[in-house]
């Protein structure tokens, strides 16, 4: 094989892997936020991504908003869905067993998926890219402009969240609620509100990922489950609760998937991320960047 085209193909796979990987990272961050506050794994997380993408389609095509406005509208509306999920469902289940909680979030995910099918049907939808123009050509590999946007959105989210949780009073209060809810309540933190905030925030971030990916890979009602699972893989691999870890792990998953699709078999590309998820859960549940001591305190 010609070495130039081989190099170009390699670069192309790397770029597309990193792009999709960043999306997984955003999904993972959604899991992390809810986990950080409630120690719940929200099985409906992937559906927020799907909803974000489809709401953006609704706002651009039906209401004719410009893409930038549609982005924020979709993020806000999906955030409201997360808000409603906590308020109407999770709050009622506060005394449930872990098993019931799992079933409940799965039930919510089925309802969201079913409703999406009801409104949008089974067809995949596309969205115009955030900025138009031809892709950049770097060493023979094409970089879509949308990919740059995806990187920018994720970088912004990660930086903001890191500051939010490390520096702001609200962020610290959220972490405290997770660590020890009764002690947090004792020092005056409204734990229920923190949980509500976490679901809203997590849904909004999922939606941001969904809107960003739709111009590249389209969006349909049943994409949520797989995106959610892969995002969870990134969350575990990066160490649950860690934003930077999720970012790196998401990219690792995206690269693995992209190389598998490019060099091995495109049919099995979805399995790669899942196999990595299983390996991470089985052999390193504290994640690549989590500490073993901290992991012992968590409820694996």
């Amino acid at each position, binding site marked *: 094989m010609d070495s130039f085209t081989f190099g170009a193909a390699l670069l192309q796979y790397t770029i597309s892997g990193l792009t999709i990987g960043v999306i997984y990272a955003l999904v993972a961050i959604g899991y992390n936020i809810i986990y950080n506050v409630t120690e719940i794994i929200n099985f409906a997380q992937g559906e927020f991504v799907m909803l974000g993408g489809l709401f953006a389609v609704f706002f651009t095509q039906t209401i004719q908003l410009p893409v930038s406005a549609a982005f924020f509208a979709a993020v806000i509306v999906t955030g409201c869905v997360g808000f409603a999920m906590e308020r109407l469902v999770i709050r009622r289940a506060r005394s449930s067993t872990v*098993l019931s909680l799992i*079933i*409940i979030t799965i*039930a919510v995910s089925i309802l969201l998926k079913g*409703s999406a099918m009801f409104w949008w049907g089974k067809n995949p939808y596309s969205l115009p890219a955030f900025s138009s123009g031809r892709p950049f050509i770097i060493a023979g590999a094409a970089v879509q402009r949308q990919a740059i946007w995806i990187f920018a959105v994720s970088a912004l989210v990660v930086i903001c969240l890191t500051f939010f949780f490390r520096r702001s009073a609200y962020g610290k209060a959220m972490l405290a609620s997770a660590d020890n809810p009764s002690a947090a309540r004792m020092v005056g933190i409204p734990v229920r509100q923190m949980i509500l905030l976490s679901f809203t925030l997590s849904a909004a971030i999922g939606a941001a990922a969904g809107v960003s990916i739709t111009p590249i890979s389209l969006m349909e009602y049943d994409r949520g489950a797989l995106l959610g699972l892969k995002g969870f893989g990134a969350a575990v691999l990066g160490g649950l609760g860690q934003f930077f870890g999720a970012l790196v792990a998401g990219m690792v998953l995206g690269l693995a998937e992209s190389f598998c699709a490019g060099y091995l078999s495109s*049919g099995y590309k979805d399995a790669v991320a899942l196999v990595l998820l299983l390996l991470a*859960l089985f052999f390193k549940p504290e994640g690549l960047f989590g500490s073993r001591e901290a992991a012992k305190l968590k*409820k*694996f």
Partner: protein
Amino acid sequence: MTPRDWRIFVITALFIGFFPWVVQPVKAISHYVDVMVFAGIFTIVCLGISLLMGYAGQISMAQAAFFGIGAYTSGILTARFGLNPWAAMPAGALLAALVAWVVGIPALRLKGHYLAMATLGFGVIVHIVLSEEVAWTGGPSGMVDIPGLQVVGLKLKSELGWYYLVWTVVFLVLLFCFHILHSRVGRALRAIHEEESAAEAMGVPTARYKVQVFVLSAVLASLAGSFYTHYVTCLNPSSFNLMWSIRFILMVMVGGMQSLWGALLGTVLMTFVGNEWLHVFADFEVLVYGAILLLVALFLPKGLVSLVPRRAAARSI
């Protein structure tokens, strides 16, 4: 089995025995026998789930995958290699047991959400393999022309024959499960559910028992899968996806997770709901499923059997 369980057993067996005699002459509901064959097949899966999730407290979102492993092993061995179905069945069960054992040892060290995610991921992987290995499984378009079953040299043709065969197996499995629950292992499983570290401190080999009950539930699911294959004689990967794992769990939850009778009741009820009464919703039946799942988990977490008056239900296992 307690005397109460024996009473329910006899009543249920009589009901099942006479059921076809009542519904078959009535034209409008004569196909209920067919629905009940499916209900019986699903009950075998759900009894395994009841042991694993209701009694031992270990969640598995991969039962449809084991159901599929049994179904496809039987399908491939009989349709492609001409093996006798009765020989293919244990082969499927063995494969399911092996897979469950290999996955179960690391997976069952996890708890709660993590175990759920791990089994969910595993289930999706199996579904991908079933869809991708086109040369073996026929891929997304599925397999056809799988032979039916023969009992003592006679080809099982009628629904009635299938009905009695499947329900006989269900009652045998039921007896076996009751036997396990009233043994040392059954008490150990309940101890694991209550408080795992306490059970371990009392000398219960928790890790081993958890894997064993996982393997058992996989074998039951695989067995049911084999019967399913030979009954419908065609296979498609979409019968073994995540939604089906959730459906099985829903069946057990509706009846009551911590009771084998609950599993049986819930499965029969939900099979009728799914096969009969939700057809009007077509594609949107998934919404109804989600709603039922949510309502049951929120308001009736112990299932329909928890509505039975407490005195009668005291120590119901």
